[in-house]
């Protein structure tokens, strides 16, 4: 096919993921979307937190930042605000994004900062070997939910939307063309974009819940979903318990880093005749 591989640090392969893990599929989808858009490799920063999913960035040939658990969006906020001209992408897991990093997630969305966030949601803490996450459906088994998860889970896309994200979509590692399309749209939105990608963790979620291997898990994921457009025409009982996939929200709004840039222009215009202020540093401004 194309030169998809050229977006990878091939010398860093093979990757650490288990056979059948869905994270590679999502990483591949991101690269294909970037390729389709023809983005400049040198102007892309991909930031992640901690988890199996977050290891994706180490294999990508961009400026990449593998941070601390839950903090990817906060690091990414620093990069984007410091250099708004860069394309900033966050790759994160369901635990990384919605548990320890939940606060950064809602505030990044609220600000509508220009970051594309791809949540690799396997509904489990994979890296720490199978504890339940805020995305684990009620009743499912995890190593810390030996009698079934007693907690309710998030609807991540609704959370993103109500927090202020301006583009939100959901796809899965089964629906790859849709996933690529959504990531492409997310990357094209000048604002905070979220793509939730349901993926399979056969090693922990699959095994613990006796769903089977990667193939059975992909079927299991597929059967939970229904296309958002198709769903609109269906009676409520047919949509009951299904996860909507597709573009779920697209409402462009002014982007934060750009707005701050405007603020700087206004302040500098108003203070053009002012010498220095607190420290006479106007001389070395940038």
């Amino acid at each position, binding site marked *: 096919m194309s030169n998809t591989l050229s977006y990878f640090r091939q010398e860093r392969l093979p990757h650490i993921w288990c056979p059948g893990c869905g994270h590679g599929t999502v990483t591949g989808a991101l690269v294909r979307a970037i390729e389709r858009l023809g983005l400049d490799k040198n102007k892309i920063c991909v930031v992640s937190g901690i988890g199996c999913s977050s290891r994706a960035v180490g294999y990508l040939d961009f400026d990449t930042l593998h941070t601390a658990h839950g903090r990817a969006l906060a690091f990414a906020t620093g990069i984007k605000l410091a250099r708004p001209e860069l394309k900033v992408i966050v790759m994160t897991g369901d635990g990384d994004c919605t548990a320890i990093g939940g606060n950064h997630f809602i505030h990044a969305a609220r600000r509508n900062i220009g970051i594309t966030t791809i949540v690799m949601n396997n509904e489990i803490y994979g890296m720490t070997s199978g504890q339940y996450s805020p995305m684990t459906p009620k009743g499912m088994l995890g190593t810390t939910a030996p009698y079934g998860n007693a907690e309710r889970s998030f609807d991540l896309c609704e959370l993103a939307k109500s927090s202020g994200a301006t583009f939100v979509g959901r796809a899965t590692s089964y629906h790859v063309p849709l996933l690529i399309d959504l990531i492409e749209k997310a990357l094209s939105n000048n604002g905070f974009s979220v793509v939730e990608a349901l993926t399979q963790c056969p090693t922990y979620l699959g095994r613990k819940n006796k769903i089977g291997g990667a193939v059975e898990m992909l079927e299991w994921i597929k059967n939970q979903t229904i296309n958002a457009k198709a769903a609109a025409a269906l009676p409520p009982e047919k949509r009951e318990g299904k996860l909507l996939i597709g573009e779920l929200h697209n409402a462009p709004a002014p982007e934060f880093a750009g707005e701050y840039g405007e*603020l700087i222009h206004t302040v500098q215009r108003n203070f053009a005749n002012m010498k220095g202020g607190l420290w006479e540093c*106007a001389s070395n401004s940038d």
Partner: protein
Amino acid sequence: MPKIVKLMQGNEACTAGALAAGLRFYAGYPITPSTEIAELCAEELPKVGGKFIQMEDEIGSVAAIIGASLAGKKAMTATSGPGFSLMQECIGYASLCEIPIVIVNVQRMGPSTGMPTSPAQADVMQARWGTHGDHPVIVLAPGNVRECFELTLRAFDLSEKYRVPVIVLTDEVIGHMREKVELPDPAEVHPLRRAMPAAPAGYKPYAADPNGGVPLMAPFGEGYRWHCTGLFHDESGAPSNKGEVADRLLRRLMLKIENNVADISDYASEGIEDCELAVVTFGSSAMSSLSVVRRLRKEGVKAGLLRLKTLWPFPEAAVRELAARAKTIYVPEMNLGQLALEVERVVAGRSRVVRIGKVTGELFRPEEIYNAIMGAK
């Protein structure tokens, strides 16, 4: 341009020092007694094209400044006790990944919410050892308003030079005190610029002399396409769990500082050349101590004051030298014995070390130190 003469608050002087160093990015979360720094940065940074952001918490604040530093900006945050505790994990990240950042910690009484917002000096050990794992860090302690300017400016230079997080440890008294200060002519200030690699071809982000070398840092977005990770990593930046890779990296990180203690160490003194009795202290406790030492001199006691401006790496040589002369070393500090632990370690029994701790949330009155010295003599 002339020198700037101004009535300034400590926190204001920290901000001015940061701007003089070329600060272009501030992220923070409000907490007394540090908040003036955030407020001033919010006002001043846009004027010079810099960015200010109020993050959702202190973890986010330190994460954001690390991101901004990676993007090539001089970046800072300021906080106090509870916020400083929240920052610890990412301070370790900056240490391991060698990202220059500056953190001002205007100390207040703890632990926990403590006694808001009375002064304390009880974060001496946290500033050094707050994050997990062995790690390099530099901690500077201004003793007056002018030094808030000087040492914050220096903090940026040191953080760029050694690629380490630098903590400016002040306290509520220093932060809120106002003094008339004379700041240098801006044209005379030459902050250090980050050393840059020559070109992306063959760039190895962590290639450096294993004996404490400092690798060259490329900003993100300039075609270097490097990988920064909080996992132990080899010279190419690739994660590694090989014991020898971790060993080499961690030893190099520590040697960056250990080999340069003389460059980093800074202190002020009075009367230590011939002293029989010495006071070793820092920050606002040193203000109270100075008048005690002068009073003792007047009374015929050969007293001296060693005021540390660098707390970490600990200026061992200066203290050791003092121990060769002074029979007794008093260590007044607004905690129950933190700096004293280091002094005791270095003195190693050559002098008697007497701790003078105060945890009432108030500055030492000189007579308290005087009486403690007289009582212990």
